[in-house]
């Protein structure tokens, strides 16, 4: 066990998978000699050579399309897109091609790619901080993974790379450098499709993922001071979704708040809230509340960004509201 940053865990996960399986290749803009704009691929081109680490021309659609081709030919490409906002340029390749190739060919062809991208708030403005998970989680044929800490990052990334189907791997970029966390030594996987209870609680459940897990744990501390015990469920993979763990938590606490950084309207939280409201209908002491960003682009200036994105405080207020009234 060692304390590591998320970016280090990413780097090590990539490196270990490349060493384990020579079909694993990396591709993306500036990932070679430069090591990626966030340093996730630092040194890997030197170690594994240019045949395994491909610097791409400036095209995200091309990067994804070429990764799909490489996967069709039997490789296990891991593509880096510099900001998740650029994934919109590759949407047709992801939704119309990667997600459907296995299904449409009755399993003759498959597309085991991983597309990694930093995403979410932390400065960058309307087109460099978008929370894009809802777009991909809705597409049958894609898997969507969002880690919230270094250990999961490494284990989930390895599982994603070994998965036989396309995985969108979204990295909350504000967690890249802090907080660091304990990362187990050696090879380990965190299987896709399993949520985890990060903190046990009895009064309410917050269902969350990514950077909001950190906010939720902070909120739980504050609420504990009020005598409210908040259970924190980290969803980890949005598709496949671990309905059981989520439902079990709400069954126990009888109150749920769904919490993500993304805009609330039409966000993935709507799926979580709709599903919980239906399945836990008889358990619920109060409505499932959703906490998310205002329905606005995320502005760049810190003052304005803070006004749009939710945080621990917003969650605390929602949980207090829920536990007081219901």
């Amino acid at each position, binding site marked *: 066990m060692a304390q590591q940053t998320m970016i280090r865990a990413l780097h090590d996960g990539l490196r270990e998978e490349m060493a384990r399986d020579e079909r694993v290749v990396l591709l993306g803009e500036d990932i070679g000699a430069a090591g990626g704009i966030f340093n996730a691929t630092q040194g890997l081109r030197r170690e594994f050579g240019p045949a395994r680490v*491909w610097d791409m021309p400036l095209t995200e*659609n091309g990067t994804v399309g*070429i990764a799909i*081709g490489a996967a069709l030919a039997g490789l296990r490409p891991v593509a880096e897109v510099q900001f998740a906002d650029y994934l919109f340029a590759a949407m047709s390749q992801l939704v119309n091609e990667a997600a459907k190739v296995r299904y449409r060919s009755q399993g*003759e062809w498959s597309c085991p790619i991983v597309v990694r991208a930093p995403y979410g708030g932390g400065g960058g403005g309307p087109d460099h901080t978008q929370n894009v998970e809802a777009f991909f989680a809705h597409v049958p044929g894609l898997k969507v993974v969002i880690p919230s800490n270094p250990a999961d990052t490494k284990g989930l990334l390895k599982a994603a790379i070994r998965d036989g189907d396309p995985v969108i791997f979204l990295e909350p970029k504000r967690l890249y450098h802090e907080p660091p966390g304990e990362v187990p030594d050696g090879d380990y996987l965190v299987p896709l*499709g399993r949520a985890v209870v990060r903190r046990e609680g009895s009064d309410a459940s917050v269902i969350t993922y990514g950077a909001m897990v950190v906010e939720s744990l902070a909120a739980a501390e504050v609420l504990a001071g009020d005598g409210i015990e908040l259970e924190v469920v980290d969803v980890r993979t949005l598709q*496949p*979704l671990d309905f*059981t763990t989520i439902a079990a938590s709400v069954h126990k606490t009888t109150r749920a708040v769904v919490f993500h950084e993304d805009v609330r309207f039409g966000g993935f939280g709507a799926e979580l809230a709709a599903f919980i409201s239906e399945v836990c209908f008889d358990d619920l002491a109060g409505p499932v509340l959703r906490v998310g960003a205002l329905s606005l682009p995320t502005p760049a200036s810190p003052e304005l960004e803070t006004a749009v994105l939710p945080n621990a405080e917003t969650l605390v207020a929602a949980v207090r509201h829920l536990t007081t009234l219901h």
Partner: protein
Amino acid sequence: MRRQDDERMRFARLDARRITLDLQADDLLRAYRNMLRARLVDERLAELRAQGYAAGGASCRGHEAAQVGCVEPLNVGLDYILPYYRDLAALLAIGMPPEAIFLNQLSRATDPISGGRMRPAQWNSRALRVVSASGLVATQTLHAAGIAFAAKLRHENAVAVTFFGEGATSEGDFHEALNFAGLHHLPVIFVCENNGIALSTPQSAQMSVAHVADRAAGYGMPGVIVDGSDVLAVIGAAREAFMRARSGLGPTLLEVIVPRLGPAGSMPDPHDPVEQLRVYLISRGDLSPEADAQMRADLAAGLDAALKAALAAPLPDPATVGEHLFAPDSASPSPTNPADGGKER
């Protein structure tokens, strides 16, 4: 008189070309048979559509020489082929059985191409290394580049050949694919079957250049224009492109100018590639009118049987609809949404 002279010149060119290409009568007869068979399959598909039997698809009429010629150098099972919806003749030539085509057109359960999941003519065959095609134009050009890159890095000596229309070259994917392929000298061949029109849009409303091949220079690759009525010319150009690809010289943009023919049953067209080859083969004594008639009859009988079998094949079973979304061993949560299955309520 004039017309006869033209023909003499053309035949002489063909004579020379077959020598250069070292093609024997058998080779030419095989090409002819492939083109003719595609024509006959295509006509049956048109009939099926006219009878309301089938859900769509595009005719390869006039494109037969382009397609048969381009796959002539293909190493079937090693090289990858990324076709578009018009490439019936290419697929038949590399070994896809007509019955598969009919099953596909009729969306039957046993359609090996997609089992009725895709509209007709979105080709696929793992065994033949025909990469599963979507219904979107130009997206496959990037896959071809990616496949070629993978093949090159693994020293596989496989070539990726992809086909598309001239309209498809207006999409960004085309640019991105050719740029990447040119950059890394990839073993990929971009075949543009230029029939001058994209649905209703003529080439003149699609681009300002006279030839798609004019774009090749911008990607550092040769742009070759070839007459798609003339299967020997196409074979020559295709072999050159495959040779370049296999020997590490990189990609080629091969523009095959294909004729637009009237519908089946209309007046014989001097640009008809099947007809051109027939006339030539007969003039050279490689084919007799009787042998030609026999070939047609044999092919027709085979196709009738295949079609009959396809028509008798079962429709897709709704119970199979959930198969193959993910890998069988896919990491999925043991639990699934207890609320799932809206249909089942």
